[in-house]
């Protein structure tokens, strides 16, 4: 069935990939590989170029430069073949409000030429998988945000894709809905589906991704597994202090010398060190009393801050 796809080798491969609109460079010559069976993430703030990259992989936006291979095929010339083996969960749901929940899935199965008898069974399984059984015969509009997202995920699985693209899958969902979605995605991974996820939530990236690239302003600034990135670009722990204005000024010089790296944010001071408690003790011993102090593990947010000087969520 597949033409040129190698049995080993990356599922997606990009070299010098770029996308330019009129005057704006959305993606600026990036390289990455996605291996079969992994959960690969694009982490970065809004406007970093993640969605543009996804659209190029998903064959809905032509690239302006570089090379891109998806499942061994070129999106420019073999888009229909790629789409047949792809599943896409877009950032904003584009479910059909003129049809019921079940009809949305059935229609999509038709668009993918899934044979009728198989389609019916598969639709039933998918409704089960995303736990929308009691909503199946109803219209789409009354569903909550989380349910719509689950339906979109179910729809993206109708053709049993080898590769699933998810653009900001849990943005706008409440915590419970988010966890349900992560749970479903994890099960998919266990079944061997390759997932490519974009997100600006560091907890999502840490929870889901085997490997990820950090994107900022159309370029890739780092890549690796979450753990590798944290150990490479950050210390193990972070001490967060809130100080009153004059204490801040007085202690600036002193604090700067205390840790590997110090970040002065408008409302907090972050001190990066192997042991946050140790640093905190030194501070209080020297007579400085912060309004509040918190010792926590370093996260991908800290990685991003180190790399770009800005936070993930503006």
């Amino acid at each position: 069935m597949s033409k040129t796809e190698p049995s080993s080798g990356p599922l997606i491969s990009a070299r010098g990939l770029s996308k330019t609109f009129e005057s704006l460079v959305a993606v600026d010559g990036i390289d990455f590989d996605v291996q079969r069976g992994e959960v690969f993430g694009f982490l970065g703030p809004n406007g970093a170029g993640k969605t543009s990259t996804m659209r190029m992989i998903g064959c809905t936006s032509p690239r302006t430069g570089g090379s891109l291979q998806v499942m061994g095929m070129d999106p420019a010339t073999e888009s229909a073949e790629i789409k047949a083996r792809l599943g896409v969960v877009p950032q904003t749901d584009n479910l059909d409000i003129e049809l019921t929940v079940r009809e949305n899935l059935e229609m999509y199965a038709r668009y993918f030429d899934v044979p009728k008898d198989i389609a019916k069974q598969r639709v039933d399984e998918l409704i089960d998988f995303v736990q929308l059984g009691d909503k199946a015969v109803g219209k789409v509009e009354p569903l909550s945000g989380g349910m719509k997202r689950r339906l979109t995920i179910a729809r993206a699985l109708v053709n049993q894709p080898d590769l699933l693209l998810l653009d900001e899958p849990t943005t706008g969902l409440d915590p419970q809905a988010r966890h349900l979605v992560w749970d479903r995605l994890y099960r998919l991974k266990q079944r061997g589906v390759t997932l490519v996820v974009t997100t600006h939530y560091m907890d999502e990236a840490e929870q889901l991704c085997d490997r990820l690239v950090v994107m900022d302003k159309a370029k890739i600034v780092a890549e690796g597994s979450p753990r590798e990135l944290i150990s490479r670009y950050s210390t193990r722990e972070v001490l967060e202090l809130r100080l009153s204005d004059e204490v801040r000024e007085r202690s600036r010089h002193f604090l700067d010398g205390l840790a590997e790296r110090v970040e002065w944010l408008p409302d907090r001071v972050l001190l990066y060190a192997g042991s946050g408690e140790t640093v905190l003790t030194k501070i209080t011993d020297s007579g400085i009393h912060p309004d509040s102090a918190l010792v926590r593990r370093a996260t991908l947010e800290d990685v991003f801050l180190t790399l770009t000087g800005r936070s993930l969520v503006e």
Partner: protein
Amino acid sequence: MSVQAPAAVHPAPSLHRALKLVHHNFLAYQHHWIAFVTGFFEPLFYLVGVGFGVGQFIETISYGDMRLEYASFLAPGLLAAATLNGALYDGFFSPFFRLNWEKTYDGIIATPVSISDIAVGEVLWALIRGTIYGFGFLIVMLVLGLVHSAWALLALPAVMLSGGALSAGAMILTSITKQLSSLEKVMTLVVFPLFLFSGTFFPVSLYPEYLRPVVQATPLYHSASLLRDLTSGQVGLPTIGHVAYLGAMFVIAATIAIRLMRRRLIS
């Protein structure tokens, strides 16, 4: 590292994929079949109200080498107008909302179905719905005694031809209209005049000399005249002209529509 990307190859539309859009519309209509059925009544009301009502005090109209009762003159015009209405709805309003508001098409093009397939499919659906209405209306005309020739057997293919041409034209409107506010402008400045100045309600000969060529350039005029020629039996050279116009319009409009729709959705 900055390799120039290969020029994108757009898959040509396929009937197989376009038909999926037809099925999609069919599924959606099952939820408002009332709208489907009532759409049939509007031209009937006009026929009764204007055709027979006003027809009471209107002279017979000279057409070709016969004189037509007003109702017989009006009916094929109304059929053409109804076809235009249907083409506008299925080729413009509905796709406009799906494209710009509901984003339904965004979901579909993530599958092997392309935007060209969508354009073709929507036009096909418009054609099918138009033909169904057309058939019903022709039966009513027959029953009311407004059909005067066996040429009327070709009226249904003529309805399909008009429907195809008008739907393709409507699809062009869809590809270029971006805002909801433009909808009102399109209705009043394009559609409404089309209805009024098309030889539907009264013959073109009533227009001053300088306006006649303008009317005769519009698609509804050709559609109405073609149907009128067939139902009254006044078939001749002009009839072939109408068929040619509509055929050419269909081909040209469909090509342009597909190209413009592609540009709209792929950025």
